[in-house]
């Protein structure tokens, strides 16, 4: 892979890393979610480089259009929250785990990207002998064929999962806070007193 694809890759990769760091590093949740939005967009670009057109679109629709908006809604609902003093519990293991993770992942990335440059043979847009459907690789038609063909059952199961998730989210989010409960109780008592 070379040429335009490579430029897009480097640009999108740079942006993705930058926004990812922004997402985790921003103090304000709103800013973090905005960074996440850009991260998602840059990933969609990478998907395009990888001939995953449909998924790039899905990425934009589902993530940018739905998930990030949901995040924003929730942030709005909750409003600014006081930052409490830092909790010391588990600090050591947290730091150690974070360090370890960063180390391992960094090592892998470093190894894969820089240490041994031509690790795997590059693939051109359509490798020789890939077959007639190669041109459609990653397209709506090709992917849709798989989704409604061999992957139909998991596809349907995912719909059930989404349904359950929606119901679950509703049930969880609707729960009363302790103050609400107190208020409810007081109200009932008052009603009982009236009778």
């Amino acid at each position, binding site marked *: 892979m070379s040429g335009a694809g490579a430029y897009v890759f480097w640009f999108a990769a740079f942006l993705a890393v930058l926004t990812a760091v922004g997402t985790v590093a921003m103090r304000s949740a709103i800013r973090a979610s905005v960074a996440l939005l850009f991260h998602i967009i840059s990933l969609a670009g990478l998907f395009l480089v990888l001939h995953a057109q449909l998924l790039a679109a899905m990425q934009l629709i589902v993530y940018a259009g739905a998930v990030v908006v949901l995040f924003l809604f929730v942030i709005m609902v909750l409003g600014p929250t006081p930052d409490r003093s830092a909790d010391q519990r588990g600090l050591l293991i947290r730091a150690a*785990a974070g360090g370890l993770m960063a180390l391992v992942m960094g*090592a892998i990335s470093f190894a894969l990207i820089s240490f041994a440059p031509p690790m795997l043979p590059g693939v051109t847009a359509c490798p020789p002998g890939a077959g007639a459907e190669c041109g459609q690789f990653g397209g709506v038609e090709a992917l849709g064929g798989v989704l409604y063909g061999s992957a139909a059952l998991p596809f349907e199961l995912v719909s059930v999962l989404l349904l359950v998730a929606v119901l679950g989210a509703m049930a969880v989010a609707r729960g009363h806070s302790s103050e609400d409960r107190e208020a409810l109780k007081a109200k009932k008592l008052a009603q009982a007193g009236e009778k």
Partner: protein
Amino acid sequence: MDLAFGWDFGRALIWIVLLPLFGALVNGISGRWASRSLVRAIAVGSVAGSFLLALACFVKLVMLSGHGEGAEGTNKIVNVVYDWFSVRVGDAVIPVRVALLMDHLSGVMTLVVTGIGLLIHLYASSYMEDDPSYARFFTYLNLFTASMLILVLASNMPLMFVGWEGVGLCSYLLIGFWWENPTYAAAGKKAFIVNRIGDFGVLIGMLLLVGTTMSFEFSDINANATSLLIPLRLDQTHSIAWLTTATAACLFLFLGCSGKSAQLPLYVWLPDAMAGPTPVSALIHAATMVTAGIYLVARLSNVFLQSPTAMAVIAIVGASTALFAASIALVQNQMKKILAYSTVSQLGFMFAGVGVGAFGGGFFHVFTHAFFKACLFLGAGSVMHAVHAHGDADLRELGGMKKFMPVTRWTFLLSCFAIAGFPLTSGFFSKDDILLGAAYMGTGPWAAYPSWVGWVVFAMLAIAAFMTAFYMFRLYILAFEGEFRGGPKHGDGHDAHGDDAHAHAHADPHESPWAMTLPLVVLAFGAVTVGFLGLPHWLGLPNVWEHWLEPSLAALPVTEGAHVSLAIGGTAMGVGTLAGLGGIGLAYLWYIKENGTTPARIAASVPRLHALLMDKWRVDEFYGAALLRPMAWLARFAANFDKLLVDGLIAKATSSLTLLGGWVVTRAQTGVVYTYSAFMVVGLAGVAWWYLVPHTGLEYAVRGTQVKLQAAAGLGYEYRFDVNSDGEFETEWSTERTIEGSYEPKDFVGGAIVVATMRPGTREREQLLEGGHVLAFAAADLGPEWQAVAPPAANAPPGTPGTSDDTLPGMSWSLPVRDIFLPYAPRGGEAHSATLEQAHGLLERIVGGESAIDIARARATNDEQRTKVGLVANEDGVDGHVKLADGTEVTFEAGAHTALVETSRGVHVVALDPGELALRPNGARVRVRGADVTQETHLRPGEIAQVGNALVRAAAVVRGTVEVRNAFGYTVRESVDVVVRPDRPADEPAPNAVRGAQ
């Protein structure tokens, strides 16, 4: 001759036992509701019936022995009731039968038990008249009679043991008859437990006897007694050389006897046993049960004769007991207590008698003693009845009883004469017999028996006899002569129990009713007269007693010419008579003439000795401190140990550990979500790490000497290989992960074989070889000819030939590895002595890891045989030297050097020629290069030997190595040892495998 009114006397025998038993059962079950007269009728009637039956049987026995003298089986009446159980010793099944036997010995004893038992039952029926537990008393008493009869009539030891423990139980119950008094109840318990200690001895003695004589029957044991003259075995292999089984068994049995018959050191229960009602004291603790020990010794007289040591011990213990108990009796003030110690003392006489070999004499004393001691006890009971004393009668509150109760007085006096050995009374004769026996032993007629024992015993017994006469007449005089010292204040200290049978007060002492006096008269008559059954032999008088018991008792193995001379007899009788008369005279002098002033003066002059005697030498206190207290402490210790240590360690400690473990693990459960996630991430990182380090995953495939190696694939992996065993990599780094290598003989690193059997369903097998391997084949592989070739004896590896099952020996293999020594067959040559450690070090270096010596040593340990290890220089080898593990160098003159491991099972050695496999046929038919071989033959790599129907191919081991490097430059290396199969050498003909099995 059939006297028997058509009776089956054997059948009668069982009824002698069963009648009192039924009496006990009936009274025990229905006695509570039955009237006293009915209880009395059943109790006395059953014993009377038993006595009559016993008498009939005895008469029959007399008849039998009168006619069939000497013939086996005519001197006894036997009744085998049923088989109880059986015991196996080795392959022999030894039945334990419920079988009764009346011979001359048990016949006499049966008569004593039933006869005197009858009199005492009669006496007790009146004596116990006022007791609320009348029926219970007779239940026990009848049960006792039955048990005693089982003891006496049993024809074997276990059945005797039934009676032996049965009388112990009854004694326990009867001593504690008035159990509401805690002292009495404790006395009962004490009696039972002390008796149990004795029973332990009987049990062990019994097992020792049966283990050697292979029978429980008295007759067989006596007949085979000489077989006991072997060292005492502790198990199948250990034994004690200086102790014969006979001595051990006799001493254990004597422990039992001394428990039952109240000898030192187990006599302590008997004085306490006087807590029971007086008839009990008379019957059980004077006339019958306590003589069971002497009876047992007499029963097994032949066994005891096998052990002069045990006999001497018995004699000395008996004499000591006689003296010891008599000394206590001198100063006691309670009537029954004096009689009790007198009983202990008299029992000592009896044991001294049997101990010096006078079985007849000792047993004669049992017989006469039964009469006069029963009479004395019953007399004492009669006195107590008269003065309403309940537990015992204190001499200080008696006196002048002859005025009130003449019958009791006269019978008591006669019995006193008898026990004192007044001439021509029964005690005179029986005691004389014992003294005579002791004196006779002193002259040393039996070489094995220490003669000094005889004289020591004689002296002790003479003193004891003097004391006996003295204290008995002291007792008589204080109780019956002089003035009555008692009064209304009687019963002091005895009314602890609430239901005193004699609570109603009488004004004066009175003579007892006929049911009590009649037995007294009969017994007193016997006490005076029965002595004439055993007139002294040495005076030429007929000794009916000895003659009668002769078939049942063993005779001393006296040396030739030893006999009782007139002098010995005279000495014994003279000393005995003097002792008796002296004692009586002294008592008369001190208590009638001087009215007790001298004894009081003497007591005052040695107050501490007197107090010691009054306290019975404080033996009970000593036992309490020396035995009971430590035992109780041990028991408390055990209980606490159990609670604290055992339970603490096994239950509490483990549970606390578990709890602690749980606590530690729950520390990780902080409840804070991100600690959980942190743990998760650590796990993830671990998984990632696995991808970071490279993995070899080396696999191989072999074809001939071609080996194909393949390493695992991985992202960014590079590989390089070594395919000729030398540890150097032939290829450069590349991403190619497979390689094929061809190995030549120079690349071989070790020996191996490939075994192919012809049997269907078996697969070819590869095996790496190490020094000393023996390859075993199944019989089917070897075919019928495998035995045809005899194994070379010198080379036979241990433990292989002749194994029973389907695995048979084939041949042994050895490993030729470059430049190293492996054990080899010794072909002469000088043996260098080297320590095991040196050789071990050598072999360890050679073979690597566990060496042949380990195996040889393990086997040697297994065989409990010694192992010898040396280094042997072989003549037809090359020079060399070996550096041992400890750094010393051992140089050999010449030859291929051999480590030799020798065990008792044969020499086990392994060869050491480099480059080849050494094959040593070992009982199998082996063909190499078309010819049968029996000697060691070497196979070059690829050559095939035919063993029976199986083929064995000399293969080789090669080594392949891969090194893997990943993107980070990490490298790992893995080697694999592969068995390769070189081609057959061109000059070797193909084996013609016998494919018989297919």
